[in-house]
């Protein structure tokens, strides 16, 4: 905001108001103006005379009125600082043209906003916007340093203040200062005088009061002495009227005074009581406690308060509460002891009974094997028993209110709260299940049961609840449900149906699956006629046999019989019945029936396939062996025949060549023995028809096979090498079967090399100890080997790479080796060809196993 500062108009040819234009006005007007100014000055100077003895407010009012009468002002304002009070005195006059409805305080506030609070710093002149126009404002200090206050004159005129106005206002301000100072002095004198008067009056009143008090005191003393006399009498009455035993004792504890009740209780006259120590009547058990409390009170001169038993005149002890108060002298020593003995025996007994019953209740609550709790009618929890706290592992304070919800499983909380709220809304007992977290973090299922406690009018006073652990039951229920479901599925899958049969009434119940097995409509009443209509006519005797056995009450029966279905198909059933007694003690059979048709068919098919396969294997290996045997026997026979022929020719020559004949005859015998050896070997090979395992030397068995196969291998230009371990432990096995496997491996190896001409047809047969007490035999060839695709199928039946092979050799070999708890496998060689090997347990392990089994 810009200050519209007009500056002092008189010093710089100020613009004058229209009616005050000195340069243009007539000299007559000038004279008139000056005269009027003179008059005004005289009036102002005369003001103090009017003010003599007046109050500052009077001074201000007359001053302001006079200024308004002299100068056309729009605003006159005075602020007096009052030395006696914080708040200044403010007065103002406002012209109508200013259209200001504000009072002195508001005007003062506006001035403060313009110029600040400190009037001594206000500027000598300022022009400020007010309303729609501007206002020239001239503050004038009252007093030499403005210590009295400030006078503010304002006008909307731009030329305000002209010289004469300035002069007039200055004089008026000075006059006001003088007048106000005088008024202030005067009022101070008046104040001092009146204060003096007040003090004199006050003192006079005080003296009068003191006099009165003295008089009263004198009167009181007289009354007190009278009262004392009365009080000693009334004390007696009071003491006797007190519902308790009262004793007044001296500092050493000797009785001085007792009331009537006391002397009656102890059965002594007041005189007898004197000098008697009440401790004589204290129960011996309580005496140590009483004595120590009494000694403590005596030492510290402090009140004592002890419960103890006192012996009545008739010897009965009753409980008393003894309260003792010391009367102290000026130095704080005890002069006397006032002791009140209140009979609390009945209360004590009631309390004890109550405590006992509460204890009992608590024990009950804490020993019930459930989590117990109580809640206020609004549902906020109040109490939890020890089990509850121990279970959740949280302190009582944390559970109270709605704190207990923290231990409820989040998934169950919603339903639990809803159930609890509906119980509260209905005001009726209820129960709900939910999981509650144990201290170790495990959630267990609980049944929350609540019961409201009602008053006579049916309002709920409290809720009581117990949470019973139903976790195991819940689990069992789940398991039962699951196993029932499993059973149903299992029955479907295994084609097992169940039945129960109450023999006395022939009441037969079937499971759904049994209906399906018999292909009867579900729910049709089951009778033996119905069953008989399905049972294969040839097996009907079995049914009659079963009925007869049941009537005899045998404990168990088991049958395999057939059903003849309407479409003439046959079903094989396996039936097991177990006898039991129902609740009324009647004989009942519970049983299961399994449809074994498929199993029966597969077993038959499997058995057939097995025997066919075995037969084929025998034929195959016999063929191989026959060829070998023929070769081995024909060699020596050939020698025998040739030698015998030669011998005959030599003998029939002329002359007979006797020496030659003898030599050839000798060779005949030798070759005959050789043939016999071959037969012996064959007998060794075939004499072990017995399939029972025996301890055998795998090397020896191998040599027998290779010696029989040698000529065949040679004919195929196979170079056979042996690497048979010297220290090979014996194995347990079927010699013929194992030799059949070895022979098969040799033949396969030989066949694999039949097309090989670019490298030696080498065949290596090796035996060695394998890890884990096993013996390994491997046959390595240099043949065509096998592809990775073929590797998976090598041991499958009827898989073969040979044009003339059956493809069952390896399959049978593997089943033989597996029957020996061994393993047969094939690996591709680093070079050409493949290695087939088997590994079977040696005898050490077998024996150990056998021993383990026996034990």
């Amino acid at each position, binding site marked *: 905001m810009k200050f519209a500062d007009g500056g002092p108009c008189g010093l710089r040819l100020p613009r004058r108001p229209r009616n005050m234009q000195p340069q243009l006005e007539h000299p007559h007007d000038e004279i008139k103006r000056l005269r009027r100014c003179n008059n005004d000055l005289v009036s102002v100077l005369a003001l103090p005379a009017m003010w003599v003895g007046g109050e500052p407010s009077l001074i201000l009012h007359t001053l302001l009125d006079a200024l308004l009468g002299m100068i056309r002002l729009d605003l006159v304002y005075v602020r007096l600082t009052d030395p006696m009070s914080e708040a200044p005195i403010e007065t103002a006059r406002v012209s109508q043209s200013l259209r200001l409805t504000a009072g002195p305080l508001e005007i003062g506030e506006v001035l403060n906003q313009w110029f600040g609070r400190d009037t001594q710093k206000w500027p000598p002149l300022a022009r400020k916007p007010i309303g729609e126009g501007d206002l020239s404002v001239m503050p004038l200090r009252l007093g030499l340093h403005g210590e009295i206050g400030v006078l503010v004159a304002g006008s909307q005129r731009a030329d305000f203040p002209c010289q004469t106005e300035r002069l007039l206002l200055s004089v008026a301000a000075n006059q006001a200062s003088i007048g106000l100072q005088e008024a202030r002095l005067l009022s101070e004198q008046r104040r001092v005088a009146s204060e003096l008067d007040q003090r004199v009056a006050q003192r006079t009143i005080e003296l009068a009061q003191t006099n009165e008090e003295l008089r009263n005191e004198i009167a009181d003393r007289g009354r007190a002495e009278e009262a004392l006399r009365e009080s000693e009498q009334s004390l007696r009455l009071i003491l006797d009227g007190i519902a308790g035993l009262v004793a007044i004792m001296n500092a050493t504890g000797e009785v001085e005074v007792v009331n009537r009740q006391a002397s009656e209780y102890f059965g002594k006259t007041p005189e007898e009581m004197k000098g008697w120590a009440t401790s004589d009547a204290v129960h011996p058990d309580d005496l140590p406690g009483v004595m120590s409390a009494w000694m403590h009170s005596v030492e510290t001169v402090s009140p004592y308060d002890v419960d103890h038993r006192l012996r009545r005149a008739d010897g009965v002890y009753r409980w008393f509460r003894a309260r003792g108060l010391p009367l102290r002298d000026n130095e704080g020593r005890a002069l006397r002891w006032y002791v009140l003995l209140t009979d609390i025996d009945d209360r004590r007994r009631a309390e004890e009974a109550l405590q006992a019953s509460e204890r009992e209740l608590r024990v009950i609550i804490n020993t019930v094997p459930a989590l117990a709790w109580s809640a206020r009618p609004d549902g906020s929890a109040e109490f939890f028993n020890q089990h509850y706290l121990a279970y959740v592992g949280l302190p009582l304070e944390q559970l109270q209110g709605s704190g207990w919800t923290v231990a409820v499983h989040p998934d169950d909380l919603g339903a639990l709260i809803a159930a609890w709220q509906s119980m509260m809304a209905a005001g009726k007992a209820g129960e709900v299940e939910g999981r509650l977290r144990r201290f170790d973090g495990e959630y267990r299922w609980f049944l929350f049961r609540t019961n409201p406690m009602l008053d006579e009018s049916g309002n709920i006073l409290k809720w009581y609840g117990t949470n019973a652990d139903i976790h195991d039951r819940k689990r069992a229920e789940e398991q039962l449900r699951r196993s029932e479901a499993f059973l149903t599925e299992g029955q479907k899958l295994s084609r097992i149906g169940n039945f129960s049969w109450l023999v006395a009434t022939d009441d037969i119940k079937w499971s759904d699956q049994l209906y399906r097995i018999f292909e009867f409509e579900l729910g049709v009443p089951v009778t033996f006629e119905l069953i008989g209509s399905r049972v294969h006519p040839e097996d009907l005797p079995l049914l009659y046999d079963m009925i007869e056995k049941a009537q005899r009450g045998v404990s168990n029966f088991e049958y395999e019989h057939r059903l003849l279905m309407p479409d003439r198909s046959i079903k094989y059933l396996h039936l097991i019945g177990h006898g039991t007694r129902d609740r009324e003690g009647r004989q009942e059979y519970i049983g299961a029936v399994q449809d074994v048709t498929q199993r029966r068919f597969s077993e038959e098919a499997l058995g057939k396939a097995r025997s066919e396969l075995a037969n084929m294997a025998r034929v195959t290996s016999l063929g191989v062996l026959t*060829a070998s045997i*023929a*070769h*081995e026997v*024909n*060699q*020596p*026979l*050939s*020698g*025998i*025949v*040739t*030698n015998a*022929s*030669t011998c*005959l*020719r*030599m003998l029939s*020559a*002329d002359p007979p060549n006797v020496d*030659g004949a003898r*030599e*050839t005859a000798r*060779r005949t015998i*030798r*070759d005959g023995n*050789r043939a016999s050896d071959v037969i012996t070997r064959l007998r060794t090979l075939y004499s072990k028809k017995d399939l029972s395992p025996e301890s055998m030397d795998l090397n020896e068995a191998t040599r027998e096979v290779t010696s029989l196969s040698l*000529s*065949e291998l*040679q*004919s195929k*230009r196979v*170079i056979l090498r042996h690497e048979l371990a010297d220290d090979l432990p014996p194995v347990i096995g079927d010699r013929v079967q194992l030799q059949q496997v070895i022979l098969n491996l040799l033949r396969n190896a030989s066949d694999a090399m039949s097309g090989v001409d670019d490298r030696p047809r080498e065949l290596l047969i090796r035996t060695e100890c394998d890890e884990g007490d096993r013996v390994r035999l491997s046959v390595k060839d240099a043949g065509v080997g096998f592809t990775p695709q073929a590797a998976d199928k090598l041991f499958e039946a009827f898989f073969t790479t040979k044009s003339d092979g059956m493809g069952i050799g390896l399959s049978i070999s593997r089943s033989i080796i597996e029957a020996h708890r061994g393993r047969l496998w094939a690996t591709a060689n680093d070079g050409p060809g493949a290695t087939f090997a088997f590994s079977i347990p040696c005898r050490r392990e077998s024996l150990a196993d056998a021993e383990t089994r026996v034990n």
Partner: protein
Amino acid sequence: MKFQPEGSATERPLVSVVDDDESVRESLPDLLREFGYATRTFSSAEEFLASDCVGQTRCLILDIAIPGMTGPELQQELIRRRQAIPTIFITANRDKTVRSRLLEQGAAECLFKPFSDTALLEALNAALRTN
């Protein structure tokens, strides 16, 4: 009565025997000598080929299954060398398909062990006749 083989009366014709079985190598030469032949024995085809008898041998008695080069291979080898010799195969494996195949391939005879002296003599006569 002294049996005289057909052919030369002054020089006995040479019959070579190749068989890995020692009893054959022992017994056959005596019988062949009784028949009036000269005889040499070898335990393998390689041994026979390496000997100086290939050209002189009038008839070869050859075991089919011998280690190394087999009987039929030796026969083929001799044909390849244009030194074909009438051959009688002998074998302990009584396999008729093998016999007929060998006869097709030019064998004079194929005898299954054990064979009689007369069967051998007939075979020898037949072999030397074809020559």
